[in-house]
């Protein structure tokens, strides 16, 4: 990317010909021309002719499309460029994909604040937020090709058509490949600002909706895919930190001299919550870390015992005073007063940890004068595209270059900058030597940022006719939206709804975890519905069918999954099916089939079926992969996972005591039916995971008549419920 941009007019651009690149901002109508007097240097910098900020095209017809989103396995490296290529009418076999530079002004998606732009890959927003942007940019690139061919042939642009990187003029039977057009490219003063309606209708898509292999997969089967942890630079040194098991505790290093005397140790660096060590090799840094003698202070987490805290939650739930109101529809008080029947249930969930398989890490090199830095990282980015590094170094964001790498899992953990900031501190100390900071798995677990523990108290009111008239949902827990997301029931026709959040804090680090509050809250909501259905002698499908009467898209997923799972078919006596509906951008209904080993308390999930409406499906097979992964991760968290805290200290440290689901426990099948739609695509990464708890608990209720109300459903807890 040229460092100094200067706007020039079109004539000036044409005079200097290929020594100029054309950039089109995301929403910019005017193409911004960036001039460089040194044509040679410019050529070297850009290497190829750059059509727009989103694409390069060379004479061989090779098209390089920039992907602005992080790739953590969700397929952005294919889905976003595919949207661009669709509108450009590019020959996909000639397309190469690269990460875009980290420049939010050009490549950012819609931020939270109005008119703001951010580069971040969170909340399953990628495809949805870039759907129009990528297509418009692709259509503009196609327009450049069309306009250039029209001028080249001296024919009206309206008579031209395109397909697979070729422009056609039917009347004269002329055709030219995009690559061959490169010497004849001309630019207009303005590019059309394609509106949604001017883009292709989904029925005319040639690439979108077909199963195109993911572009980065070949590099993930031969060991070549570069994660940040794989970066090695000349003269690089290694950093590790000891952070302690009690979040917020302050360290006092008791044996600094001994540590500094260790082989290869270059420096110890104190942090407010940790002691850092830099050494020549990773093994030296780790060996020194094991020798650290540290006195840890008390912290806000001192005295906190996570397994004994529900009593306190119960007291908060019993208080008269209402918390922060999140949903208020109709008159819940009236529904309560005139209720013919009331149901009350509590639901609980323990802390869980992200367990992304690539431990947190970063490589940073700060220049000798401390005035600039380069960062190699796998990040979901965040509110600061430069990941907090400029603030640490006291330099402007332009002075920080971020090289984004594949993420060995994100799940929300990599939208936090703590690990990058830690590395920046070390790199500043060691400048100009590059520093690779690695969190051990033990660091990653004990200093995790967890999905919060919470309590949900649900009250459901039936009216005189036995109709579901009121639904009240109270969440008690830490972290606001981290516990309160997913309490809305926008697709259920319940006239009176109320949801509130009541706060309690324990000084434990918290973070978004795939699907956030939807996990615990959908568990509570969907279980509550089956509890009502069972009491009323209704089939869970019949109850949801009534509730979804005004939501045809949600209802379609219900009907489809009933068919796919053969809901009404016969089933082995020791098995049962259960269902759950989830909205998380996309809408999905899931059904599972389970059995329970009544001797051990182990739940076995045999099958999972999902019907999903996610609007336009860009890559059908990839969406199915997201459903499969979402269900497996959901099963892992629902059946196995919990972080416990004793006197403020995290009790788990690695996969031996934080067990993830292994292959022996996978279902026989996970089948997904995708509903055909031409609506705007909605996120799919977090819709499957929150189905799991409700579907399993509802199947368990049908099978045993007993209620699972506390996540995770470990064998001990299941036995307790069975014998209770």
């Amino acid at each position, binding site marked *: 990317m040229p460092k100094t941009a200067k706007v020039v007019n079109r004539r000036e651009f044409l005079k200097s010909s290929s020594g100029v690149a054309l950039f089109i901002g995301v929403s910019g109508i005017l193409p911004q021309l960036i001039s460089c007097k040194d044509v040679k240097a410019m050529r070297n910098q850009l290497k190829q002719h750059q059509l727009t900020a989103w694409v390069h095209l060379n004479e061989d017809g090779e098209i390089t499309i920039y992907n602005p989103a992080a790739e953590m396995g969700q397929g952005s490296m294919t889905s976003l460029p595919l949207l661009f290529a669709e509108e450009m009418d590019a020959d996909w076999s000639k397309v190469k994909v690269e990460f875009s530079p980290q420049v939010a002004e050009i490549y950012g998606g819609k931020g939270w604040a109005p008119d703001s732009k951010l580069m971040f890959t969170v909340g399953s927003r990628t495809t949805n937020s870039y759907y129009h942007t990528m297509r418009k940019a692709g259509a503009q690139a196609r327009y450049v090709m069309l306009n250039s061919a029209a001028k080249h042939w001296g024919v009206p642009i309206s008579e031209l058509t395109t397909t697979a990187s070729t422009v056609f003029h039917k009347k004269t039977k002329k055709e030219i490949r995009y690559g061959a057009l490169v010497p004849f490219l001309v630019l207009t003063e303005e590019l059309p600002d394609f509106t949604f309606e001017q883009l292709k209708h989904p029925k005319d898509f040639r690439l979108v909706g077909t199963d195109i292999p*993911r572009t980065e997969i070949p590099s993930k089967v*031969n*060991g070549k*895919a570069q994660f940040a942890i794989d970066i090695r630079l000349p003269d690089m040194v290694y950093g590790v930190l000891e952070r302690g098991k009690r979040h917020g505790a302050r360290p006092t290093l008791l044996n600094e001299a001994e540590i500094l005397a260790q082989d290869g140790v270059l420096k110890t660096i104190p942090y407010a919550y940790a002691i850092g060590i830099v050494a020549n090799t990773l*093994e030296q840094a780790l060996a020194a870390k094991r020798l650290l003698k540290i006195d840890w202070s008390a912290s806000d987490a001192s005295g906190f015992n996570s397994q004994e805290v529900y009593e306190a939650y119960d007291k908060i739930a019993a208080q008269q005073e209402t918390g922060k109101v999140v949903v208020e529809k109709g008159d819940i008080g009236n529904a309560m007063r005139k209720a013919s029947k009331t149901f009350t249930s509590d639901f609980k969930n323990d802390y869980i940890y992200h367990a*992304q*398989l690539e431990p947190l890490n970063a490589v940073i090199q700060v220049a000798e004068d401390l005035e600039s830095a380069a960062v190699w990282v796998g990040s979901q980015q965040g509110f600061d595209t430069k990941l907090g590094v400029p603030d640490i170094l006291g330099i402007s964001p332009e002075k920080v270059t971020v090289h984004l790498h594949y993420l060995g899992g994100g799940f929300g953990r990599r939208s936090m900058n703590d690990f990058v900031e830690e590395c920046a501190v070390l790199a500043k100390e060691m400048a100009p030597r590059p520093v690779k900071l690695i969190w051990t798995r033990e660091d990653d677990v004990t200093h995790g940022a967890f999905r919060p523990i919470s309590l949900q108290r649900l009250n459901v009111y039936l009216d005189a006719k036995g109709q579901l008239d009121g639904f009240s949902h109270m969440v008690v827990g830490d972290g606001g939206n981290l516990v309160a997301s997913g309490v809305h029931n926008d697709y259920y026709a319940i006239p009176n709804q109320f949801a509130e959040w009541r706060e309690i804090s324990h000084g434990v680090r918290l973070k978004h975890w795939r699907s956030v509050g939807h996990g615990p809250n959908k568990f509570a909501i969907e279980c509550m519905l089956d509890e009502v259905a069972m009491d009323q002698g209704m089939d869970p499908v019949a109850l949801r069918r009534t509730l979804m009467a005004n939501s045809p898209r949600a209802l379609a997923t219900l009907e489809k999954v009933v068919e796919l799972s053969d809901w009404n078919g016969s089933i082995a006596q020791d098995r049962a099916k259960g269902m759950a509906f989830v909205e998380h951008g996309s809408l999905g209904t899931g059904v599972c089939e389970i059995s329970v080993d009544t001797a051990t308390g182990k739940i076995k999930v045999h099958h999972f079926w999902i019907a999903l409406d996610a609007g336009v499906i860009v890559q059908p097979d990839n969406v199915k992969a997201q459903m499969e992964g*979402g269900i497996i991760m959901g099963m892992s968290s629902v059946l196995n996972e919990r972080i416990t805290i004793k006197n403020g200290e995290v009790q788990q440290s690695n996969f031996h005591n934080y067990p993830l689901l292994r292959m022996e426990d996978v279902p026989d099948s996970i089948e997904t039916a995708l509903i055909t739609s031409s609506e705007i695509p909605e996120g799919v990464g977090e819709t499957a995971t929150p189905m799991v708890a409700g579907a399993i608990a509802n199947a368990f209720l049908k099978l045993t008549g007993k209620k699972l109300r506390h996540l995770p459903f470990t064998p001990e807890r299941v036995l307790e419920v069975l014998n209770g």
Partner: protein
Amino acid sequence: MATYSLNINNEQHTFEASEGTSLLWILREHLGLTGTKYGCGIAQCGACTIHVDGTPVKACMLQVQNFGNGQKITTIEGLSENADHPVQKAWIEVQAPQCGYCQSGQIMQAAALLKEDSQPSREKIKSYMNGVLCRCGTYLRIIDAIELASSKKPLT
């Protein structure tokens, strides 16, 4: 520090390291064979699975001084000439990876399985592969890929 000479992917690598250094750090940080991944350091996740004389082992548990006697070490980089091992081809065919971080370990374990049993049952696959974790949840596709690679059907 001592000098070691290891046979890795049919090449002799000579380097200096301290006794006791794990083979994982040697491969990744000393020699740049970064396809083998660090996930847990205690043989719980299998991301660092390599072959020593054809047997799948976890590199994080091995120490450099025990492998200088001509043992043949194979990493993902040396599994095949052009990433064309039947397992690798099947992996692409079924689009198994998501984030991809665990997949080197999965592939090395699967390649060893098929060498031992060219037609493993589904139960055998599950038990043989059970030590390799995948957080993205690609297990079902991994099973599909192994079954595909084990079938007589030629791969496209």
